[in-house]
């Protein structure tokens, strides 16, 4: 089996799995309990938080554990809305965000908020002038993704940070789910106030995630209750999940440079290969994350290609897994200026450090066969 669908989810790293198991066996206490078992869990949880904070270069008070990326995005957006509704009711985002952001925005619109959706260019990037024009006196949040989950395109976060320097009261939220470990995110230096991460995208267990919330930024909790996570995220802490999450993050960032070089070279090898195939169009812009390639065979629907490769034991996806069960068009690709037909042909390869160059070579051989069959479709 060749698994090239790592942007949908990743296989949990074996040693991370062992950690998850060991913590469950040895540290099952509720961190809010006052006895030793609770205290040990509390300490372990704090250690994980500290480790994550150090790896991310921020303070441990700025790390909030969540159940994943979707919760994080919902929390950042609606938590800002609730905390800042007295200051204004306008938010800015882009048209190619993840559904977790877009649907949260839609919900706010339904209760009277104003949302500006910035367009993107051929590279998938927003236009900074459009952003500047969109900022109003009552803008409370700018929400942009670091790496697009469908195409790997990058938003100019540094330039956006500079624009927002003049607007200190606006919250800047970044959905960084696809970016972690792949592109540089300087949380401390940039103007980013909130960044959202998901564990299962980097070989940690599903149902885990964390969020960076800059000190001093006010957010209302999405889930309220027992006072956990400094009152920002309530509910008994998933200690085993969070410890495993910290470990996975350490592993991810340990060989970051080498891993990304390897991913880039595998990606480049695939791009070179595709460039020789007449009916293949690559949708990922040249400047994009090292692990994602979006492409399509002319006139062949994406799911046909997915299933054809699946028969050969190769797993890729049509678009983001979140909406790929419904027959919706691949929105990011259309917004980047491609036709509806092209968008319908799009599939995505997404790599991780578990993939090898051998797999890339096997993929090419297999793809040759499938391509010969599918390219004939008019």
């Amino acid at each position, binding site marked *: 089996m060749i698994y090239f669908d790592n942007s949908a989810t990743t296989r*949990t790293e074996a040693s991370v799995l062992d950690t998850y*198991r060991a913590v469950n066996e040895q540290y099952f*206490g509720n961190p809010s309990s006052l*006895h030793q078992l609770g205290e040990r869990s509390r300490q372990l949880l704090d250690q994980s938080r500290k480790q994550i904070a150090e790896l991310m270069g921020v303070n441990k008070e700025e790390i909030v554990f969540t*159940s994943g990326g*979707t919760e994080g995005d919902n929390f950042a957006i609606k938590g800002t809305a609730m905390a800042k509704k007295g200051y204004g009711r306008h938010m800015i985002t882009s048209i190619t965000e993840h559904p977790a952001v877009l649907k949260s925005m839609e919900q706010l619109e339904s209760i009277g908020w104003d949302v500006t959706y910035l367009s993107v260019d051929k590279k998938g990037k927003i236009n900074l002038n459009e952003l500047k024009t969109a900022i109003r006196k009552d803008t409370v949040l700018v929400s942009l993704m670091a790496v697009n989950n469908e195409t790997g395109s990058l938003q100019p976060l540094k330039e956006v940070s500079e624009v927002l320097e003049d607007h200190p009261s606006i919250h800047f939220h970044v959905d960084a789910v696809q970016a972690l470990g792949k592109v540089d995110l300087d949380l401390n230096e940039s103007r980013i106030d909130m960044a959202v991460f998901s564990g299962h995208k980097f070989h940690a267990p599903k149902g885990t995630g964390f969020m960076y919330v800059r000190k001093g930024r006010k957010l209302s909790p*999405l889930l309220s209750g027992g006072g956990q996570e400094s009152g920002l995220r309530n509910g008994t802490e998933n200690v085993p999940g969070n410890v495993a999450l910290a470990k996975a993050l350490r592993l991810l960032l340990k060989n970051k440079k080498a891993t990304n070089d390897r991913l880039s070279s595998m990606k480049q090898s695939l791009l070179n290969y595709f460039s020789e195939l007449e009916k293949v169009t690559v949708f990922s812009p040249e400047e994009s994350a090292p692990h994602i390639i979006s492409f399509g065979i002319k006139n062949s629907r994406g799911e046909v290609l997915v*299933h054809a490769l699946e028969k050969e034991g190769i797993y890729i996806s049509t678009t983001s897994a*979140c909406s790929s069960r419904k027959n919706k068009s691949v929105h990011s690709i259309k917004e980047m200026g491609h036709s509806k037909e092209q968008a319908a042909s799009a599939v995505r390869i997404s790599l991780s450090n578990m993939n090898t160059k051998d797999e890339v070579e096997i993929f090419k051989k297999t793809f040759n066969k499938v391509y010969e069959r599918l390219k004939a479709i008019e």
Partner: protein
Amino acid sequence: MSETIYLDHAATTPMHPEVIEVMYETMKKHFGNASSIHQLGRESRGIIEEARRTFAESIHARSQEIIITSGGTESDNIAILKSVEKLKGNHIITTAIEHPAVLEPLKYLSEQGYDITYLPVNEKGQVTLEQIKNAVRQETVLVSIMYGNNEIGSLMPIQEIGQYLKEVDPKIIFHTDAVQAYGTEDIDVKASEIDLLSVSAHKINGPKGIGFLYKSDNITLNPLIRGGEQEKNMRAGTENLPAIAGFKKAVELRKDNKEELKATNLYFKKLLLSKLKENHVDFSINGSIEGSLAHIISLHLTGVPSSKLLIHLDLANIAVSTGSACSAGTVGPSHVLTALHGEDDPAIGETLRISFGIGVKEEDIMKTVDKIKQAVVFLKNKKV
């Protein structure tokens, strides 16, 4: 650590070894995203739908009425905040002894202009049907009453309330936080006319970070966490497959040994009480044994500060609690005991919650009684 006597199963429970095994295997073998259209995704989807059936059957619901969440707190938040949004009427009825995961969202709603009636409880820690009858108004949109209390174990007359509400005004939504009762009580959401019911896995030897919310087909609910189309648009986010599979295992295991566990817990509870009496430890029960959850007992140990008693027991490797675990960092007076006894009652600072579960042995109870006695004698002498 292995020798720790764990009597705090109401706070959280150790995962059953078979549950850990299932999760481990699931993470290794089935890592596909359940929304992916390829084979790996379809396998994951199949596991989730099977688990959903198991969850549904456990409360006599239909599969499509189960929304999988990240746990009890999320389930309660959705139930409270998202059921009333589009309803006409601004009155909600609850009890004074609910879990913070219910009380906090209600506090938010009260700030938004909702009128909340907090029913007081009787000496058994229960509300009565009469109280509900008197509290229901034309404007009542939601009644949220916990199934069994987490600090004193009192069971509420859920079926009576559900059937009454159905009769008097079927539009009123009936929610129950069943986090402590699930897996110990026979819950039938249809017979009890329950519209919303919250459950958490880690209280029944399942994994942390997973739970479900039952939502009757008869009511509509808005999603709290939005994004992808998972859980039929009711709860976005990549499904936590290994935890779902582990939770399913925990439900199956509990189904097989529920009656036995309940009988054992009750036996331990009675043994504990009789041995304390035998040893002349001065105590009274907060609430009552009748009409309470078998696995929870709350004791007022007269004249013994619970914070100090807890330390003594902890040093003897006995893990118990003063109240609920959910007051992270801030050990304020328990709102449950305050509701039961009134403010400034000595019981508030002199209460021990002991909660039983799998793995507890008779000798653990004997040792615990022994240590409680020693500590009580020590602490009382010290005071004099």
